[in-house]
C-alpha cells in the first residue's frame, strides 16, 4: 500500500502531462518576462560560463592535464563535468523550493503538489538539455559519434529522473523545515569539490575515493566524461551507482511522502 504512494503520484503527473508541459513552458517564460533578450537568458548564463572555461583554460593558458586523464585540455575536461553539474544544482534547487514557492497556488487549486516539482525540474531540463546537446556537438572531434556518445541520452534521462525524486524529497523536507534549503544550498556549493569535475578521478587520493561515490553526481559526471571526451560507453559501475541512487531516493521519498501526505499543503 505504502509502496504505491510515489508511483501513484508520478503516474498522475504523467496523466496530466499536457498540463505539466504548459506549466513548464510558462515557468521558463516567467524567468525572462520583461527582459529584452527574452527566452535566451536562461541559456546564455550557463553557456557563457562554459565558454569562459574554454577560453581561459584552453585558449589563453593552454593548460594540460596529466597522462592518465580522459583528455588533456583542462578547459575541455572542465566543461564536460561542469555543465551537467550546473544542470544538477539548478534542477535540485528549483525542485527543492518548488512546493514552498507554489504554496499559495496549492492552497487555492486542487492540484497534486508533485506537479510543481516536476515542472521545476523539467523547466531546468529544457534549458540544460539543449545546452548539453550543443556541447556534445562541439565535442564531435573527441567522441566521433562512437557508440559511447549515445550514452548521453540515457545519462541525461536518468539525471532528470534523479532530480525529480531528489527535488521532491527535499521539497517535502523543506516544507517541514525551511532550514533544509540553506543546508542543501551549502552542500551543493561544496559538492563540486566532491565530484570528479575539477580533477580527474585518478588524481583523487585512492584511499578516499569512496567518499566521491556518496555523491550521486560522481557516477553521472564519469559517464558524461567518458561519453563526451572519448566516445566510450560508461562503465558498469556508473550505471549501477545510478540505479542504487534512484532506488534509494525513491524509497526514502516514498516513506516521507506517505508520512506527509495529509498535511503537506498545510505546511506551505
Amino acid at each position, binding site marked *: 500500500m505504502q509502496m504505491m504512494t510515489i508511483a501513484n503520484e508520478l503516474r498522475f503527473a504523467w496523466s496530466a502531462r499536457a498540463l505539466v508541459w504548459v506549466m513548464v513552458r510558462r515557468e521558463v517564460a516567467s524567468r525572462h518576462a520583461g527582459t529584452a533578450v527574452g527566452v535566451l537568458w536562461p541559456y546564455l548564463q550557463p553557456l557563457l560560463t562554459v565558454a569562459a572555461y574554454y577560453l581561459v583554460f584552453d585558449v589563453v593558458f593552454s593548460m594540460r592535464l596529466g597522462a592518465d586523464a580522459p583528455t588533456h585540455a583542462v578547459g575541455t575536461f572542465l566543461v564536460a563535468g561542469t555543465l551537467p553539474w550546473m544542470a544538477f544544482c539548478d534542477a535540485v534547487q528549483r525542485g527543492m523550493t518548488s512546493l514552498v514557492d507554489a504554496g499559495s497556488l496549492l492552497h*487555492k487549486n486542487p492540484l497534486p503538489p508533485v506537479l510543481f516539482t516536476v515542472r521545476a525540474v523539467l523547466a531546468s531540463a529544457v534549458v540544460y538539455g539543449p545546452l548539453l546537446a550543443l556541447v556534445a556537438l562541439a565535442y564531435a572531434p573527441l567522441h566521433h559519434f562512437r557508440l559511447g556518445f549515445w550514452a548521453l541520452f540515457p545519462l541525461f534521462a536518468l539525471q532528470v529522473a534523479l532530480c525529480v525524486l531528489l527535488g521532491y524529497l527535499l521539497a517535502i523536507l523543506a516544507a517541514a523545515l525551511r532550514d533544509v534549503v540553506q543546508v542543501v544550498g551549502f552542500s551543493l556549493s561544496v559538492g563540486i569539490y566532491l565530484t570528479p569535475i575539477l580533477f580527474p578521478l585518478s588524481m583523487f587520493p585512492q584511499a578516499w575515493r569512496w567518499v566521491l561515490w556518496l555523491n550521486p553526481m560522481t557516477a553521472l559526471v564519469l559517464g558524461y566524461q567518458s561519453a563526451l571526451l572519448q566516445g566510450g560507453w560508461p562503465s558498469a559501475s556508473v550505471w549501477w551507482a545510478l540505479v542504487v541512487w534512484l532506488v534509494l531516493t525513491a524509497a526514502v521519498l516514498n516513506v516521507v511522502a506517505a508520512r506527509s501526505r495529509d498535511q503537506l499543503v498545510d505546511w506551505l
Partner: protein
Amino acid sequence: MTPGGNGKRGDAVLAVQGLGKEYRLYASPRERFKSLVTGRAHYRSHWALRDVSFQLRRGECIGVIGDNGAGKSSLLKLLAGTLQPSAGTIERVGRVTAILELGAGFHPDFTGRDNLYFGGSLIGIGHDEMARLEPEIVAFCELGEALDRPVKTYSSGMAVRLAFALVTAVQPDVLIIDEALAVGDQHFQKKCVERIQAFRDNGCTILFCSHSPYHVRQLCDTALWLHQGRVMEMGETEPVLLAYETHSRLLSADAQAADDAPVPVLAASVASEAAIVSATVAGLDEEQVQEDAPLLPGPDLEVTITVRGRGDEQPHVGFMIEQTRGVGITSMVTHEEGAAPRRLPDGTWRIVLTLPELPLHSGDYVVSVYLFDHSGLVVYDQWHQFLRFRFVAPVRTPGLVRLPHHWS
C-alpha cells in the same frame, strides 16, 4: 467534465461521509521535521472538523454558517480538494469549482490574456476550449484593452474581475463560494450575484459559506451550522438560522456582560465600526418588551432608524416585519427604493420609515432592522427580530395583510 444541468435534479453530486480534518500542531518546525524523518510524532492534534456527513443533490443550495474558527474554511478547502481529509470520504460528481480567494496565482509580469490561458489550464480548461470561451470571458470582466497589459498594472479590483470571470467561465456541477462576495465595484458585484443565480437556476449545486444570515436566507434552501468542527444543525434554512442566531445572541450577550464594566476603550474601538445605533417605533416603549408585546397606538407604523456608517460611505438600511412565529410578511431596503439615510451633524445617519395605515390585520408582529453598505450586499449589522408589538386593525375580518382592492 460534465457540464452542469444535464443530470436530473435529485442526483447526489456531493456526498460527504464522516469527514474529519486534523491539524497537527508541532512545538516547532524542528519537531515537524523530526517526525517526518523518524516517523515518531510529538504533536498536539487539533481537529478543525470532525465527523461531518451530508449529501448535496443537484440544484441544491446550501449555506454553511458558524462562528470564526468553526471549521467553515477547512470544510470548503476539503470539498474543493486543496486540503486532504484526515478521516472520512468525499465523493464528487462532475466539475467542482471553488471561489476561495480570487486573483491568486496570476503572474504579475504576464498579460491578463496570458494569465487567463494559464489559469484556465490549472482548472482544466485546455487551450482550445479557452479560445472558445475567451470572448465571453473578455466581455464579462470588462477589462477591454487592459487585458493585454501585464497583470501587475491592474488594480486589485481588475484582477479579481478577471479571476471571477475565469473560474465561472464554465458552469460547474458544484460551486463552492467562500465568504462575502466582495468582488470589485457595485456594478460587478451585481453581475457576479446574477451569474451565480443563473448557475443555480441551471441546476448547479452551490455551497455557500458566509457569516451573513441575510445572504444565506437570500440564496440557500438548506443551511448547515458548524460549531467547533461539528455539525450542530442541518436542515431547512430558517430553523437552522434561527437556532444559530439565538446561539450568537447568547454568546454576544455573555461577552457583553463580561466586557461591560471595565473597558471603556473597547467602546471607542467599536465606535469606528458601522452599526445600528437605534431603531425606535413611534409610540412604543421598547424598554418594556418582555412577555407581552406592547400595543401599537396609532394606525401608522413609524420607525426611526439611526446608524453609524463606515467613514463617508453612504449606508443603506433594511426593515422587515414578520409574524411572531417568524413568517416574513414584508421587507424593504433603501437601496432598492432610491432612498437613503441622511447624515446628521454628529456623523451618524438617520432615516424614518413610515407605513401609513399599516395594512395588516390584528396580531402580534416582530420587526428587524438591517444595516448595509453602499452596495447593499454587505450586511454591517442587524437587529434581528429585536422588537415585538401588537397591532389592532380597524377591520374585524380574519387575515394577515390588507391588500389594495376595490369592489365594482
